[in-house]
């Protein structure tokens, strides 16, 4: 038996919708096998992982809190990946945004006005754009590989955060814990309803709608797609590849920065040595699972947020390591990429020596 690919005459629309569903199903099946191997009842474990967190109001709120950064970063990354620009350093831009935005409440704690929050958000976005702008400028100016530079900047931003919270930004009244001072009321993103959900969720919804409109209804959206799929055609149309690289990095960096400051100001309320459970990397999976479509990313953001909560729930109730979350996330991306092949190709199995006819 040999596996052969046969190119479809055109993209399969049915498969474009089905492939994420197949991928999720395969991930769940693999998960069941994995849990069985760990000596758990697969049905109970899967229930704990993917259903139980949806049954309580507090955990539903937590789901929104976790989905917020994933969606904000994911829609930005979609623009990058659609235009064939590879920003994989969103985790660093998230951290840079959090740092830049936190400067105000940490260095000027007395500055409490209605301007505090808007300024923090703007600074957060600017911080993310700055961090995302570095690989973009290096790419445009020198042709430096943006994948590697954006990733190296993740490590650098995390070390910078670590230094700040252990050194100059450590809370003077914090008993030497590596934490910054707690943000004042004026520097805290207001909660939505009564609980953990904060205004950041609204930013995510706005970003989804705005980018959906840009991608589907405007010339810019067309430009992003053309430069991604047919760079030569894009050049003939007068689109600039270099401007697109800058645009994609600044946009995704800015959104990641906004996610960073929203998370810190709305959820953690201070800086600590670790402020993200890998949102910037998980958002890559969110973007692909959502088929690089803002609406799709909205839903996949919730699914990946659920995997974080499920991991915590399974650890508490069943004693399963919360590391399984990351295994699930990695598996999911694998299956998504494998299933996407079905959109452009038909798969057939051929016996060795026999060639498929009429392909």
């Amino acid at each position, binding site marked *: 038996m040999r*596996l*052969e*690919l046969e*190119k479809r005459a055109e993209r399969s629309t049915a498969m474009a919708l089905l492939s994420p569903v197949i991928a999720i199903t395969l991930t769940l099946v693999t998960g069941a096998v994995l849990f069985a191997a760990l000596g758990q009842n697969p049905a109970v474990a899967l229930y704990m992982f993917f259903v139980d967190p949806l049954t309580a109001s507090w955990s539903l709120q937590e789901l929104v809190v976790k989905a917020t950064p994933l969606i904000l970063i994911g829609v930005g990354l979609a623009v990058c*990946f659609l235009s064939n620009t*590879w920003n*994989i350093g969103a985790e660093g831009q998230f951290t840079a945004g959090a740092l830049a935005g936190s400067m105000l409440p940490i260095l000027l704690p007395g500055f409490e006005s209605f301007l505090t929050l808007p300024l923090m958000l703007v600074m957060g976005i600017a911080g993310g754009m700055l961090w995302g702008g570095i690989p973009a400028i*290096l790419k445009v100016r*020198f*042709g*430096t*590989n943006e*994948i*590697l*530079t954006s*990733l*190296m*900047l993740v*490590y*650098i931003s995390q*070390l*910078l955060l*670590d*230094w700040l919270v*252990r*050194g100059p930004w450590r809370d003077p009244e914090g008993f030497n814990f590596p934490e910054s001072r707690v943000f004042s009321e004026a520097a805290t993103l207001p909660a939505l309803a009564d609980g953990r959900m904060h205004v950041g969720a609204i930013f995510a919804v706005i970003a989804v709608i705005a980018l959906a409109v840009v991608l589907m209804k405007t010339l810019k959206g067309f430009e992003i797609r053309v430069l991604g799929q047919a760079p030569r055609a894009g050049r003939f149309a007068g689109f600039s590849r270099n401007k697109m690289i800058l645009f994609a990095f600044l946009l995704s960096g800015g959104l990641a920065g906004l996610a960073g400051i929203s998370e810190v100001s709305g959820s953690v309320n201070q800086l600590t040595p670790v402020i993200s459970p890998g949102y910037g*990397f998980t958002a*890559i*999976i969110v973007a*692909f699972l959502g088929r690089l479509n803002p609406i799709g990313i909205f839903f996949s953001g919730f699914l990946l947020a659920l995997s974080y909560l499920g991991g915590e729930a399974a650890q508490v109730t069943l004693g399963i*390591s919360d*590391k*399984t*979350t*990351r*295994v*699930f*996330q*990695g*598996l999911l*991306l*694998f299956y998504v*990429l*494998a299933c*996407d*092949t079905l959109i452009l*190709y038909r798969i057939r199995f051929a016996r060795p020596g026999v*060639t*498929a006819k009429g*392909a």
Partner: protein
Amino acid sequence: MGAFESILLTVITAATPLLLAAIGELVVERSGVLNLGVEGMMIVGAVMGFAGAQATGSPYLGAVFALLSGMGMALLFGFLTLHLVANQVATGLALTLLGLGLSGMIGEAFVGQPGIRLTGIDIPVLSDLPLVGRLLFGQDVLVYLSLILVAGVSYVLFRTRAGLIIRAVGDNHASAHALGVSVIKVRYLAVLFGGACAGLAGGYLSLVYTPQWVEGMTAGRGWIALALVVFATWRPVRVLAGAYLFGAVGILQFHAQAHGVGIPSQFLSALPYIATIAVLVIISRNRILTRVNTPACLGRPFVPDR
């Protein structure tokens, strides 16, 4: 043992994992495949190397476990990118994310456990020579293996028919296919070789560099290895030079921290990452150099037409 000698010894241990991973990836990229999952294969190699040594009591068998697990990860990557023509960049990222998750899960039981060190060899008389004895004749087997690999890869790539085929597949897969070369098969073998090297590199970390398991212990070394291949403009001997240069940078910050230089440790820890960006910029400024040397089909999927 003099201070200089001990620094040189630590540079070798820091450089070897980078060298192993980078020389493997070099062959992969020469065949036209970009596997960004080096970090993921490495970390799985690290945890499996540790586990293998614990289970069998032999660090050498641990290294074999590391090598095989790296190949297993590479096989996954190969199936997706070569058989299913999935996007290589995205699949490589998936491999890294999966590897980090898997290793964390497998390694949870090993956190805090003492490891088994793969020690250096000891040749009577030679190892006891003054100055150069320990340096040249007292290293562990993997150090020698990494150097042999550089020579071997260099020889095979540029002096044998097999090497010609690998480079042909990497530079023009359509022509290679037309000449009757099985592009997919060559690429599979290259990807598996890369996985074996990355796995072994990870094993080196948990068996020699710091014989224990720490989550995320590769700390970006897989990515630095990828940068080294670009830095070396796909030449094995330059990979050797780059790996030792980066090994030295890593050790420099380590010694600076130990001697309490008045710079915060985080800044010193960031040195290898900053250096990586710096060398990438320097090398890519010379566009002709990179364009001439980059395998022309790097990252481009191949679907044979029938």
